[in-house]
Structures are given as structure tokens and as C-alpha cells.
């Protein structure tokens, strides 16, 4: 009884939830439609409406049910799949293949993704140039706009970018939810620091070779986006590494551990985002006065960001991506979204409402293009 009352403290009445959804409704309408509906293309219109309704229903449900991760993950997974689908579709349309050729590299036609950012910092400082064969300002996924998007998102959300903005994270997040119980329960604590070691190594090797080594040799998401054309033993080895890492860290291990293992153990941008957790105003707080130390939060955390010691000390680690899984799991409402400076246990609803608006707005608008495009393609395929 007590638990039910406490857990329901974050949810709202139907009318109030609708009122909280109204600003999201208006802003997403403006961004998705550009202010007016295009009736000349019924597929585009229908896809836009479906995407628009989807994001707003999910946001409404977050307020109505008081649950965050349950609805966030729906959009997050759809975003990841849509982006890969749209990208692959475009590449097949343009190049008749998922791979890019040497000519695409020479003509600097490779779409930029935020994972390159850790590797381009040192060369940018010393050579005053970007070590990536993409476009600075024009075309799809150009370097300037991706850098701006990531920079603002990481300042505002910190590592929250990994759960509310990264268009790859939805893959291992999705696979980590397939099994109900984990097969592998314990992983060495020090592995949490692996992304920092990867960051160190890729930043160093990229600086010394002026090649984005992570993209060139390691990135598992090449498997679901694009990769170098296999023309030699070296490019074949790279493709084998991409596929193996995708299979291992994005599919198999997340299923076995119920954790986002790629994000936890490999992603170098996750390490930088963890550091920016120090800057963002939004955080997750532990109200020690209410906590009964059931450690359900530790169990469900997908990024190994929580340990029993952390909970006992009343804090979360820098690895927290603010996905909300622990907040949803806590029956006492002891772990909650908070704002830095505001003591734990205070302004829980206010902090959650503000964080949800900021983070969900970013996710909804950032994902809109890819989701609408993939819905449109699916509609054309079906009808």
C-alpha cells in the first residue's frame, strides 16, 4: 500500500498530463511539419502524423504513468533502427551497396557521426584541420551541424546524450531487453573504466596517424551503417572486426547481461560524455532518508553506473546516462531525477518535469527526420 502510494507520486491525472504535453505537442508539430501539413504527398503526410502522434503519446504516457525509461526506450530503439534503415536505403539508392568506395573517401562524401569527435580534437588543435573525409557544412550529416548538436546536447544532458540522443545506443538497449533475467550477472568492476582506456588509445593513435582509428578499425555500428568496400585483406579484416564487435557487444552480451555492453565497455564518446556529466545541471539523486537499500536500481542499471557502495553513499557515478531505468524500478521513489544544487529528496516532480521536457524534446526532434523517412518508406512498401 505504502509502496503504491510512493511510486504513484510521479504520475499525474489525465488532464494534468495533457497540459504538460501541450508545449511538446506544439513544438514537435512545428518542427515535424514546418508549420503546415503537406497534403500533396499522402505518404509523407501519414508518416509525419504517425511520428508526431508517437512522440506525443510517449511523452504523455511518461507524465501520466510516472514511468520514464519504459516509454523513452520505445522512441530510442525506433530512432536507432530508423536511422540505420534510412541510411542503408539511401546508400543502396546512391551506391547500390552498403559500403563506401575509395572514390567516396577522396571526394569527402562520408557522413559524419558523433563518434569521430574524440579523435578529431587533438589533430584539430595541432594541424588546424579535421581528420575525416566528410563535408564541413553541406549535405547529410555534415561535420559542423553534428558537432554543434553533440556539443549542446552533451553540455545540457551530460552522458544523458547516450540515452536520449545517440542514434546507435538504441541497438544494444533494445537487445539488452530481450531476456527477462541475465545469464551473466557479474563483471569485473574495473571494466567500467574501459571506455576511458579506449578513448585514450583512439585519441592517441588518431593523433599520431591522422586517421580516425576507431571508425577505421573498431566501430561496431559500421555493421548497421556503412563500411569500407572489401577489396583487400586489410579491409576484410576490418569488416570482420566490425561484425564481430557488433555481434559480441551489441547483440550477444547485452542479451546475456541485460546491460548495454557496447556503451559500457567500448564507446569512447561515452567517456567524454561521462566527464560532461560534471557540467550538466541535471542529475540522478539518491534520497538516503527514503532508500531501503533493496538495490533494485543497481540490478537494473544498464550501464554499470550504480554500485551498492554508490547507493550507500547516496550518489550515482559519472557513468549515469539518466535513462530512468533505476527511477522506474525504485518502489520508494528514493532515486529520482534532480537538479544540481538542490538537495536529494527535494523538488522531485519539478526536476523530473524539467529534465523530461529538455531531454525528450532533443530526442523527439533529433529523431524526427529519420523516423518520418523510414515510416514513409515502410508505408510505400506496404501500400
Amino acid at each position: 500500500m505504502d509502496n503504491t502510494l510512493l511510486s504513484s507520486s510521479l504520475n499525474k491525472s489525465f488532464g494534468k498530463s495533457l497540459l504538460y504535453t501541450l508545449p511538446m505537442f506544439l513544438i514537435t508539430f512545428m518542427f515535424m511539419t514546418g508549420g503546415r501539413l503537406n497534403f500533396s504527398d499522402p505518404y509523407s503526410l501519414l508518416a509525419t502524423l504517425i511520428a508526431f502522434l508517437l512522440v506525443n503519446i510517449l511523452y504523455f504516457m511518461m507524465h501520466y504513468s510516472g514511468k520514464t525509461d519504459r516509454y523513452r526506450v520505445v522512441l530510442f530503439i525506433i530512432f536507432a533502427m530508423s536511422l540505420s534503415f534510412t541510411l542503408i536505403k539511401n546508400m543502396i539508392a546512391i551506391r547500390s551497396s552498403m559500403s563506401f568506395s575509395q572514390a567516396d573517401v577522396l571526394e569527402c562524401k562520408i557522413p559524419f557521426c558523433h563518434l569521430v569527435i574524440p579523435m578529431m580534437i587533438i589533430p584539430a588543435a595541432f594541424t588546424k584541420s579535421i581528420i575525416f573525409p566528410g563535408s564541413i557544412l553541406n549535405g547529410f550529416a555534415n561535420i559542423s551541424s553534428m558537432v554543434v548538436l553533440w556539443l549542446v546536447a552533451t553540455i545540457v544532458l551530460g552522458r544523458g546524450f547516450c540515452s536520449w540522443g545517440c542514434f546507435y545506443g538504441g541497438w544494444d538497449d533494445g537487445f539488452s531487453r530481450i531476456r527477462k533475467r541475465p545469464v551473466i550477472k557479474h563483471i569485473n568492476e574495473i571494466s567500467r573504466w574501459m571506455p576511458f582506456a579506449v578513448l585514450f588509445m583512439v585519441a592517441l593513435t588518431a593523433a599520431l596517424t591522422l586517421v580516425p582509428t576507431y571508425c577505421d578499425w573498431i566501430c561496431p555500428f559500421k555493421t548497421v551503417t556503412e563500411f569500407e568496400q572489401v577489396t583487400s585483406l586489410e579491409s576484410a579484416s576490418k569488416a570482420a572486426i566490425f561484425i564481430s564487435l557488433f555481434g559480441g557487444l551489441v547483440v550477444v552480451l547485452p542479451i546475456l547481461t541485460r546491460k548495454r555492453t557496447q556503451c559500457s565497455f567500448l564507446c569512447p564518446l561515452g567517456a567524454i560524455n561521462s566527464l560532461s556529466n560534471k557540467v550538466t545541471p541535471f542529475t540522478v539523486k539518491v534520497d538516503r532518508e527514503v532508500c531501503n537499500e533493496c538495490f533494485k536500481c543497481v540490478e537494473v542499471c544498464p550501464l554499470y553506473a550504480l554500485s551498492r557502495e554508490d547507493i550507500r553513499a547516496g550518489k550515482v557515478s559519472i557513468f549515469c546516462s539518466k535513462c530512468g531505468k533505476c527511477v522506474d524500478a525504485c518502489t520508494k521513489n528514493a532515486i529520482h531525477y534532480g537538479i544540481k544544487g538542490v538537495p536529494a529528496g527535494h523538488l522531485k516532480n519539478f526536476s523530473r518535469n524539467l529534465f523530461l521536457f529538455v531531454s525528450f524534446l532533443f530526442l523527439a526532434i533529433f529523431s524526427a527526420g529519420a523516423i518520418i523517412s523510414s515510416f514513409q518508406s515502410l508505408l510505400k512498401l506496404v501500400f
Partner: protein
Amino acid sequence: MKKKVKIVAGITWAFVCLILIIILFPGLNSFSASTAKLPFMKINPNYTGGEVANQIVAESCTLDIRKPVFDGLFKERKNGFVQLDWRGNLPGKIVDSIDFDHDKKIDFCIFIDRKQLKTTIDQFNKNVKNIIISTPTSYGWSVRVGLRK
């Protein structure tokens, strides 16, 4: 008092972030354009192939000979390349003599059979190594020839 200041500062920063996210997408084009003007926002010559140093114009096509690229992190590397770009309506077989260092001596001759996708070079300069890349492009054909300092 200190606690209150912390609370006010935290909430103010949160609202600033809210505004940042709201203006991010409408202002993205403008922010990106400003970012693109930053001094380091240009693609490294290892990818672009470097600046065009010399252009040879023929009847139906042009050949761009770019500056040799030896760019490293702190200083120039021992090994680099020179990129050649043929643009326009290209013949099936390309034969060109290249003087990339402008010493009025031919450094290498290049033979490209576009149909067979076969490229060979004859080196006359000891610093010319081998063909790194030879590929058709959207504008014609590109070749990178390895160089040593």
C-alpha cells in the same frame, strides 16, 4: 544562505539549458555556419588530396596536379603522396607525364587503362614510390602516387 544560492544557481543553469535546447534546432543552420568558419574547420589534406598546384587543360578534359601532401601531427612525415585528378570527358586510355615539383623535369609517367581498371607508372624521380590509389570518381579519375621526402 549558501544552500539557497546553490539551489538558485542550479535551477537557473537548468533553465538556461532548457532555452539552449529550444533554440538549438531552429538556429542549427546559423550555428553550423558559424562553427564552419572556425580556423580548424577544414578537412585535412590527407583526405582532400591537398591544394591544386597546377592545372593542365586538354581538349576535352583537365588534369589537376595537387601539391604533395606530407602532413603529420607536428611536422611533415617522411612518406606522403601527390594526388592527380582528371576531370571532364576522359579517353579510354590516359597517358600523362607529371612534373609535380615544378623542376621542369618529368618525375613520373602514368598510364591508366580505364576499361581494364589498370594503372602503372614509370618513375624518373627517386622520391616517387608507388600507386596508392587509382579509382574512378564522380568527376573523372583520381590517382594518388606515394612519395618519400
